[in-house]
């Protein structure tokens, strides 16, 4: 185990370093997300004002604010750019260089990204959670912070990242067939954004659709941890949701492996 970690730590460090080198990019990414949250914040405020009841389908405005910012930052935390990277590597052929290295290919991608994920956790997610708790305190006058929920959130977020990573891995292999990765990327992000509830809470959707979406892997990629943090689930439901995440992680692991082996064969046929 120790040895495994040792051989992947360099990938992780490199990931953090490249993130810092492109610090402006990172900042832009974060600020871009926050701007989006603010637009949505005002939009919902407008909605709540028009509604006049202070509640919207079981969400108070405070709930909504927490949902908005937390689901957006969780989305950024679990975001994986591995599909773009694989796509690029397939296109310029440098994927063969990666295959030559004596490490597990998926894991080398994952560790390179883990550095980024850790950075985001420290400089983005935790401060946002702190800010949200202060906000909630100012509005309601009571401290509603719950350590157990935070820990469960982190656990669920890790699972969410693993699922997101696998989904993106599968998407990356589309590069074997299509050249317009940019378009595919937009498509992927908006589909995930919609189906994972980061745009609109799944709770707001019509019942049939909501049930459907809650069982799909996309909800496991962001909606589940956020709902857990907000205390919207009871103990049994938390256990069930976490279990569902684990199941999806395993299924998608299998799927990505399957595609991967198929892809390697294709790579050989193409001659790399």
């Amino acid at each position, binding site marked *: 185990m120790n040895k495994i970690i040792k051989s992947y730590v360099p990938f992780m460090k490199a990931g*953090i370093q490249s993130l810092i*080198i492109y*610090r402006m990019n990172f900042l832009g990414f974060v600020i871009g997300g926050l701007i989006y949250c603010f637009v949505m914040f005002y939009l919902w405020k407008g909605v709540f004002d028009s509604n006049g009841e202070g509640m919207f389908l079981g969400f108070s405005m405070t709930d909504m604010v927490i949902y908005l910012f937390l689901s957006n930052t969780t989305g950024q935390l679990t975001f994986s750019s591995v599909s773009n990277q694989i796509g690029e590597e397939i296109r310029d052929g440098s994927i063969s260089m990666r295959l030559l290295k004596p490490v597990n290919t998926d894991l080398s991608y994952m560790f390179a990204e883990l550095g980024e994920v850790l950075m985001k956790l420290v400089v983005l997610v935790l401060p946002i959670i702190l800010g949200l708790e202060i906000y909630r305190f100012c509005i309601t006058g009571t401290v509603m912070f719950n350590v157990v929920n935070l820990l469960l959130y982190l656990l669920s977020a890790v699972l969410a990242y693993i699922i997101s990573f696998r989904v993106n891995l599968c998407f990356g292999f589309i590069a074997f067939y299509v050249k317009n990765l940019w378009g595919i990327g937009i498509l992927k992000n908006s589909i995930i954004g919609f189906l994972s509830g980061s745009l609109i809470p799944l709770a707001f959707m019509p019942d049939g659709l909501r049930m459907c979406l809650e069982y799909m892997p996309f909800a496991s990629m962001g909606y589940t941890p956020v709902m857990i943090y907000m205390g919207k689930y009871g103990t049994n439901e938390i256990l069930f949701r976490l279990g569902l995440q684990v199941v999806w992680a395993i299924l998608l692991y299998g799927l990505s492996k399957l595609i991967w082996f198929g892809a390697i064969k294709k790579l050989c046929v193409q001659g790399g």
Partner: protein
Amino acid sequence: MIYAEHLRKEFKKTIKDPGLKGSFKALFNPKKEIVVAAQDISFHVPEGEILGFIGPNGAGKSTVIKMLTGILTPTRGECRINGKIPQNDRKNYVKEIGAVFGQRTQLWWDLPLQETYLVLKEIYEVDDAKFKKRMSFLNEVLELEKFIKSPVRTLSLGQRMRADIAASMLHSPKVLFLDEPTIGLDVVVKDNIRQAIMKINKEEKTTVVLTTHDISDIELLCDRIVMIDKGRNVYDGSLHELRENFGQTRELVFETDTSANLTEEQFRNGLKLTGNDLVIEREKNNFKVRFNSTKMPVSEMLSYTLSLTKVKDISVKDADIEEIIRNLYRQGETSDE
């Protein structure tokens, strides 16, 4: 035609200490360093000349070429080509020049080669009659017919280079800048491209500035060379002069008899030559001795060697141009220390 006066170009560069710690430092407190790519470079090229612009890697050749073509703005100094300052009047200036950067292409990657020429025809406002004449000339010189209908991405490196040179010549520029036009090509293609450059230069009196690492390019093409190193002029003159001034180096090659156990030390001891005046390479019984013939006449060197040991075979020859240039580069290195 081309005047470059005291050109200097500085770049700003963020430096970072190695490792994760260094990255964090750079995040919060980025350190900027000024890198001088060209210190002070001056030269001039008369009309119709082919100038070889040479120097070791990182000497600043590309930076100077990019200043001359108007891509980079000099930090200090000025260049004037055909009476124009590239940065001040770019649009009119670039009509009179053509440029090829060997490492990248200006052709439309996904489209048949022909399409690129049609677009360039409009961009450079070449009229139909002239375009036709021009294409047949370029066809003849660079032999484009075979692949003119193929998409650019399917061309071989040599074909692509020929296509790129043709693209830069389409509007009959007065000056042609070629940055490593023969890089990565095989001998036959190299020769082909050299012939083309020569022909263009002869028939159209095109002034050519060419950078290269291939000494044969210089020997076959260039009337004159300007050599730079570490952003400064090192040499400016004809190839002939270069040989005269620096070409006193001779090369003595001999093979000793197996019984003679001559060492480098022994050989060196009897001679009063030091530093660059005497360079010895030895592989088993084969000796290669480069020496300065003004300090020690060839005859003396020969008799010294013959008196010292039994030789199987011995010969003396002039050092080639590559050798001279290597020596010049080496001088730059030692004077730096």
